[in-house]
């Protein structure tokens, strides 16, 4: 049997295993764990959004919270019922037009993504002329501007109070499905000539331009796609949490997403997903460190989990400077190689094998 066939069979087995896991998890996970899973998927989408710009195109952008906020608010406004909206907007009553906006959840979610993409397009004109750290600062600034605008546009966004009573449409299957669509889109895109053009920009801007690649156009493409994905992530978050406010989209969210992307490996789809799952799960599962452990005489220090978590991260970054996956993708060869490596540690064969 040739390699390709083996890989297809392994792919089918893996997908079947994933579906099996989903049925099992849906039946046996408690709501808390289900929620962690959903949050992981949402952050994975946000990490993929950042990876599109930071990992593939080599730009340093931190604008995700702003785009997430736009997606979240648009989705919320379109899904909260008219009666609820009227009762939520207390300080400045909602306009009739806004109150009557309504769309089914999938449409509202896509509208959120599109709105975020439109903003990314507009912001892209001034900021994409910047490079490196300057771009990071400018995008972070725009993200904060969006948040401040949301805080102050009382009649549209209900200001600092935010919007609640957002109907929940998120369950494990929906989260996984949307994540899968975005992953497939990203992978399909990176195989095209447009994907390669983005990689060329990452590798060497000067050479890419000399080869006829329009830098601005392609950077804009990545930035808008990234905005769209972050908008989708934000919309899902709104629907999962049920209540949103401007404080949920502070710039610290950008760092958290950046952490996921760097931890997983910039330029790797597998890495972004792994990073998101590891960070979210670790943050939740290390909560016991904040509580007292009487058996060890540990009094419980609030925030201890963050200290431990940060230390673990530093360790990971020191050991794997390029993140878990580097800029490679998860592949069967890679897994095979990993197990061979593990095997070679435990069974030191007397004669060294020379590979190629």
């Amino acid at each position, binding site marked *: 049997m040739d390699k390709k066939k083996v890989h297809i069979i392994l792919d089918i087995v893996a997908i079947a295993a994933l579906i099996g896991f989903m049925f099992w998890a849906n039946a046996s996970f408690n709501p808390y764990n289900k929620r962690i899973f959903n949050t992981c998927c949402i952050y994975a989408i946000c990490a993929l959004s950042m990876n599109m710009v930071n990992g593939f195109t080599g730009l340093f952008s931190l604008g995700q919270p702003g785009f997430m906020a736009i997606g979240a608010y648009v989705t919320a406004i379109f899904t909260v019922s008219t009666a609820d909206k009227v009762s939520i907007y207390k300080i400045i009553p909602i306009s009739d037009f806004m109150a009557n906006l309504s769309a089914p959840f999938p449409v509202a979610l896509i509208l959120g993504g599109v709105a975020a993409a439109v903003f990314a397009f507009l912001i892209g004109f001034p900021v994409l002329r910047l490079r490196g750290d300057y771009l990071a600062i400018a995008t972070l600034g725009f993200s904060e501007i969006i948040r401040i605008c949301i805080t102050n546009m009382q009649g549209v966004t209900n200001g600092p109070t935010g919007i609640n009573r957002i109907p929940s449409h998120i369950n494990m299957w929906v989260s996984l499905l949307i994540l899968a669509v975005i992953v497939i889109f990203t992978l399909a895109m990176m195989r*095209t000539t*447009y994907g390669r053009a983005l*990689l060329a920009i990452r590798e060497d801007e000067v050479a890419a*331009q000399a*080869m006829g690649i*329009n830098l601005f156009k392609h950077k804009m493409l990545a930035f808008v796609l990234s905005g769209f994905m972050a908008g989708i992530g934000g919309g899902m978050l709104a629907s999962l949490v049920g209540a949103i406010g401007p404080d949920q989209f502070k710039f610290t969210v950008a760092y958290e997403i950046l952490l996921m992307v760097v931890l997983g490996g910039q330029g790797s789809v597998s890495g972004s997903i792994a990073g998101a799952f590891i960070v979210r799960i670790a943050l939740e599962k290390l909560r016991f460190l904040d509580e007292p452990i009487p058996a060890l005489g540990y009094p419980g220090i609030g925030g201890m989990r963050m200290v431990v978590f940060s230390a673990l991260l530093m360790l990971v970054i020191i050991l794997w400077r390029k993140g878990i996956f580097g800029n490679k993708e998860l592949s069967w060869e890679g897994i095979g190689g990993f197990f061979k490596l593990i095997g070679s540690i435990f069974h030191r064969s007397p004669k060294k094998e020379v590979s190629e």
Partner: protein
Amino acid sequence: MSALLETKDVTIRFGGLVAVNLLNLTVNDGEIVAIIGPNGAGKTTAFNLITGVYAPTEGDIIFDGIKINGKRPDQIAKMGIARTFQNIRLFKDLTVLENVLIATHLNVKTDFFSSVLHMPYAMKEEKKMKEFACSFLEETGLIEHKDDIASSLPYGLQRRLEIARALATRPKILLLDEPAAGMNPKESVDLTEFIREIRDKFHLTIILIEHHMQLVMDISDKIQVLEYGRTIARGIPFEIQNNPAVIKAYLGEEEIN
């Protein structure tokens, strides 16, 4: 016959420094023209002006009858001027094939969404691009390395890959910035042959910057000598070899009798 590329009194200043001063370069179709001169003479700056990295402070650059100064490098690349770089600039983490494929992107017709959706038309074009890229790798003897990571190639092959990548943009003019730098005598003889070969095969016009005099004298139809941004001589190789100003400025009096 009108020139394929012509620079008219092109000057660029960086603050007080005049890097290129009144450059008049005329390149006819099918010629190989060498630009030589001591370090810091403004040779690479001249390339950067022609390829649009810098816009000239004064003067015009005419390519194929169209004024190109002020255009972006990608626009100029699309018009048919390709280049290599003095210190190799490959897409290091990508494969050899991908490096060349990227250079075919400027002629892509499929739009983004049909491309992502892998529409039949898009797939056809992608296949054509791959075949096209592979044909250049065959020409340059890199085909057996097509799946290697570019930065893992030996130095000489990296230079070749840079040329293959430039050729894949289907240029009319190819600008080679010190193609023989760091090569041993045998490699540079091979390179001389290779440059002639690609010129004939792809009907190219070539401008090259080179310090390797044997190569320059062997290959060039015309030579232009720069010093401190100024042209101090121009002519056929024989004239340049015997030009006292050039000998004084650049070649050294001891070397040429």
